[in-house]
């Protein structure tokens, strides 16, 4: 008798499985699709961690004081900062701020450690290029200038 009940139970489980997959199959006709990337994209959340960029004050200038805390905090040593005290200004400002995005692990240590909140995460996620060099040296100062010009 076990022989027949085994066949019956097995066949029943197969039928249940087929019913569920048909159910899922038919659900598609009610327009319940995934987001067809890249034709449509989902909104990027507020706290999304892209590569770092400079924040700016009202004048469109960077808040960076070239204190090098981020350079020291970075686990992968992918930040390079140089700064000087320009004449007529109270604080130092960065003359060079390079991010090597190819080794960055997006941990956010630099953003947390920054005393002036000069760094923030960008929302850039679909980065692609044929050359590695573009991301090996992301110049944040130039990036800020470009963004200000676009405004």
């Amino acid at each position: 008798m076990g022989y027949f009940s085994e066949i019956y139970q097995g066949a029943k489980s197969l039928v249940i499985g087929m019913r569920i997959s048909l159910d899922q199959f038919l659900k598609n006709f009610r327009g319940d699709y995934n987001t067809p990337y890249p034709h449509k994209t989902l909104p990027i959340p507020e706290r999304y961690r892209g590569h770092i960029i400079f924040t700016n004050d009202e004048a469109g200038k960077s808040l960076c004081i070239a204190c090098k805390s981020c350079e020291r905090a970075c686990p992968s040593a992918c930040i390079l900062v140089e700064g000087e005290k320009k004449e007529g200004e109270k604080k130092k400002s960065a003359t060079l701020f390079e991010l090597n995005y190819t080794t960055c692990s997006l941990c956010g240590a630099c953003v947390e450690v920054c005393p002036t909140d000069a760094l923030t995460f960008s929302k850039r996620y679909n980065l692609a290029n044929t050359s590695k060099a573009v991301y090996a040296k992301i110049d944040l100062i130039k990036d800020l200038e470009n963004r200000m010009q676009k405004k």
Partner: protein
Amino acid sequence: MSAIIDFCGPWWPWVRMLLFLVGTAAFAGLNAAYLVWCERKIAAFVQRRPGPMEVGPQGLLQPIADAAKLLAKQMLTPPAVDTILYRIAPVAMIIPALMCFVVLPYGDALMPTRIDLGLLVVFALSAFNVISLMLAGWSSNNKYAIISSARVVSQNVAYEIPMLLTIVTVILVTGTTDLGTIVGQQGGWFWNWNILRGIWTLANPLVPISFLIFFICMLAETNRAPFDLAEAESELVAGSFTEYSSMGFGLFFMAEYVNIVVGCSLATVIFLGGWQTGLGNLLSFLPDWAAAFVGLGAFFAKLYAMIFVVMWIRWTFPRTQFYGLLNLSWKVLIPVALFTLLLSSILVKLPNLF
């Protein structure tokens, strides 16, 4: 129609042959291409994805793009393969599959050749794919391929037996192996189809089970999931055709779908009444040519419904275990098929005894 026949005169048989050759080749090729599209769409819908969408509307041109890609690729012959067998295998896979169309009846007049042993011819030819797959696995000098071909042989041998047993059960009832006659017997209402007729004429009340066995065996014979042990992509990479590239692989791929079409057509012809609409004489007001088209439509409706089930099954179940597969054949399918055969032969002979 008769005007054309008159015009061709003594050449008509040759013209007819040519027409059928082109027709079946086009039918098989189109089916192979667009069943891949169907398969991908069905897979996607079962998995809640949109499927191919980029090439053409709803991705309808995708098979053409795929075919162009396969044709443009280089035909690699890896070192240390048995070159002749390696090249023969894909051809030996597709040709028997295409040759099955010689006897498959798609309509009263849409029958390339009518021979008395039509059913036998289909089985003889479809059994050939075991040898081709084994050749492919053997010649490509790849360990995964040879494991796969060993699996194919034992699997197909195990499943040919219950398949033929169920067919014998049906032949006992129909009394012929001519596919055209088998369909002709199933005319009228749908309860005259072989899958239901055995029940009420008491010739063989277990015919639906025979149909189920036939269907399962057909899945196993065409190496479809859940019996796709031969190409088990998560175990054997791509099975027998691991080493094949370009159209060498493309032919195997086409042959798989052509085999499905052949298998499902055969199931339609034997069990589901072929081109018979199953609506009795409701459609008798139609002129002959319209009736032929309706018949063809009925055939295709049944055929593609069965192919849909084949694909639906593939995207639902995991792959069976090897000895599970053999156990199913030897412990379940063969005894049940033998029992139905016995029952039906008794029931056929019983009236003669009194």
